[in-house]
């Protein structure tokens, strides 16, 4: 059943486990599979009880559903993690330097390392951010770098997610669940904890207090679009875990030059807002006047130095998939070093030669929308039907600039627990990165997403993916 062309993270061949999984494999062989299946069912009950569900856009029925959880952990050795950490830190520092440059003197455009149209035609570029240095010089306070693995030492960055990475609540809840179900495993193996993430997030955001803040403990709030947002659970969970206020548009108002929150005792100023509202909806006075989700005047307060907005408005240009293809140059330009983590080779369909190649090889490629996310509007060539391929070809020809294409990567597998025992499934990894002035903190672990369907390479939860607990070993 295991296809050899995919790197299996658990198996070393000949039935032996790869080193990071040795302890787990030994424990597993002593367990009764029926008990483990029963625990799988328990895990689901556990998630339902705490209320972790997920809204899927475009599905009228069963809008709220559970993301399936698999009880077999994804295990990463200490040395593998150190390499990833170095690579991610380098990349995140480069991204921040890039954003500061793009909203500053635009050296990278002057040097002609990047074509001007890439920024000029990027809708996520906000002129309103030009000449504005965000507090502490930080643009991307919270990043979720999507990684995939194709071999022993082969890691690729798939997406940088510099705008609004979601899913960190799953990292925390998956661990909590595993600790409850398999306490003995954690005494046997040295798994680095992830539970300090909310406290680290709070610390990291507090260190980015706005220039005019003169108190000792900044008031941190999470701005949510509200209960109907697909990630509302996460917003309320994080606010609770980190001891921050959870606020909606209707709770906030500009008072005395600050963004303030209505409380039973009057108004209370907010110093740092972790907003989960998109740029366009953030401030109806400056951006989309129809927005009911934002705070009128927050951009004025921001520019005047009275609040910190995390992540900074305009950060989304870094998530553009055409820009992604230039990341190796971007890393080199700002750090003077070669990129440690690999970039997936990317064809920009806006370029005539690339478009021709992509059209000729559509059935072998993954094609993504330049501004898309969440796996929506994407074509996975090898899995697509003839009709899907020809429909997509028409879309590509109509608006080539909207698309980039990448080879189908041979994503590594990690086993999941099935009724027939362990079965390999493809995975990716999203570690969570926190940036404060001068510091990049990466929680040892992250969210492993797993394609539950045999052979499937799409791990997005909106497309039927599940999750696993991710263990980084303390060796």
């Amino acid at each position: 059943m295991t296809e050899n062309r995919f790197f299996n993270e658990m198996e070393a061949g000949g039935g032996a486990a790869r080193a990071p999984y040795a302890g787990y494999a030994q424990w597993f062989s002593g367990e009764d599979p029926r008990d483990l299946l029963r625990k799988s069912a328990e895990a689901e009950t556990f998630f339902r009880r705490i209320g972790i569900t997920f809204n899927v856009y475009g599905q009228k029925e069963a809008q709220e559903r559970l993301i399936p959880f698999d009880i077999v952990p994804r295990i990463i050795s200490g040395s593998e993690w150190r390499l990833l950490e170095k690579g991610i830190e380098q990349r995140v520092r480069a991204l921040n330097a890039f954003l500061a440059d793009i909203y500053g003197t635009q050296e990278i455009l002057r040097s002609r390392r990047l074509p001007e149209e890439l920024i000029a035609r990027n809708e996520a570029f906000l002129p309103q951010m030009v000449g504005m240095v965000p507090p502490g010089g930080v643009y991307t306070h919270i990043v979720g770098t999507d990684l995939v693995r194709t071999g022993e030492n082969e890691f690729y960055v798939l997406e940088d997610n510099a705008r609004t990475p979601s899913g960190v609540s799953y990292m925390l809840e998956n661990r909590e669940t595993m600790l409850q179900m398999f306490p003995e495993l954690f005494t046997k193996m040295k798994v680095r904890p992830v539970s300090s993430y909310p406290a680290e997030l709070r610390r990291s955001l507090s260190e980015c207090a706005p220039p005019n803040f003169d108190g000792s403990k900044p008031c941190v709030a999470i701005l949510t679009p509200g209960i109907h947002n697909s990630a509302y659970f996460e917003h309320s969970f994080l606010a609770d875990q980190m001891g921050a206020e959870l606020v909606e548009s209707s709770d906030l108002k500009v008072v005395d030059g600050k963004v303030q929150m209505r409380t039973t005792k009057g108004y209370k100023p907010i110093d740092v807002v972790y907003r989960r509202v998109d740029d366009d909806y953030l401030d109806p006075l400056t951006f989309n006047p129809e927005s009911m989700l934002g705070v009128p005047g927050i951009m004025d307060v921001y520019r005047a130095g009275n609040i910190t907005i995390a992540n900074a408005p305009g950060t989304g240009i870094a998530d553009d998939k055409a820009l992604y293809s230039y990341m190796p140059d971007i890393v080199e330009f700002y750090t003077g070093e070669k990129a440690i983590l690999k970039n997936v080779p990317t064809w920009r369909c806006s370029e005539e030669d690339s478009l021709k190649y992509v059209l000729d090889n559509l059935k072998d490629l993954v094609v993504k929308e330049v501004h898309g996310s969440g796996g929506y509007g994407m074509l996975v060539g090898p899995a697509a039907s003839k009709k899907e391929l020809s429909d997509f070809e028409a879309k590509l020809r109509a608006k080539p600039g909207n698309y980039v294409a990448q080879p189908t990567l041979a994503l590594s597998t990690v086993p999941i627990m099935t009724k027939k025992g362990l079965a390999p499934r493809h995975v990716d990894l999203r570690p969570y990165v926190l940036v404060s002035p001068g510091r990049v903190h990466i929680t040892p672990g992250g969210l492993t997403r797993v394609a539950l369907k045999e052979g499937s390479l799409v791990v997005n939860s909106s497309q039927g993916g599940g999750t696993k607990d991710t263990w980084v070993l303390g060796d």
Partner: protein
Amino acid sequence: MRLMISHTTTYSYDRPVDYALLQLRLSPRNGPGQSVISWQSLVSGATPQVAYQDHFRNAVELVQMDEGGQTVTITSQGEVETENLNGVIGTGGKVPLWIYRGATPVTTAGPTVRRIAAGAKEALAENTLAGIHQLSSLVGEAVRYEKGTTHVATTAEEAAQAGQGVCQDQAHVLIAAARHLGLPARYVSGYLLLEGQTQQEAGHGWAEVWIDGLGWVGFDVSNEICPDDRYVRVALGRDYSEAAPVRGLRQGDATEELCVSLQVQQ
């Protein structure tokens, strides 16, 4: 030339307003051809919140209308020393030029704007400055100055089709046409001393177009000239909405009445 300006804007409402924010761009900037000798803004019926410089280096003030109020009065006044630069503002500013090349919703060139632009192509190929002058007169001929036919949100294409509009519309048409021809262009809001009259009806607006070698050069379609020392630049943006003297957001359905009193004199 020393110009004395006094500008009062009053917003009145037929019922109490619970919540309203006003973003003001009313303070003239120091810069080529003008220095601000004195300036002050007074607001009644609203409370100042923050003041800052925006991305175009416009001085911005955010004020909040007092809860339950029915009137806001904003008076800005002062003296500005001006010099005739024949419209040539030159280089400067942090905003990259390409920002001024892209069309905004109101300055998107439609068929009528494109037809006006086409008339200046030949002259432009010879000499950019002469070409823009040509374009400016073409816009003036195509869009006659006529009050009351357009509103603040009228697009360049709509004004061009109607063949009439006010200074804002003429400037938008010129901007849309210039951008269509590949030239960076922007909107300027400000004041103009009209000889022989102290009392002005409204603030003025004109366009600036980027010409390699010269930098930004102002063109006032309405008066068929490049701005001289009778002009005071206050704010700029990609179109009127970004340079507007007042941008507001209000909750509730009160009916608004606007009253402007403006004096510009030597």
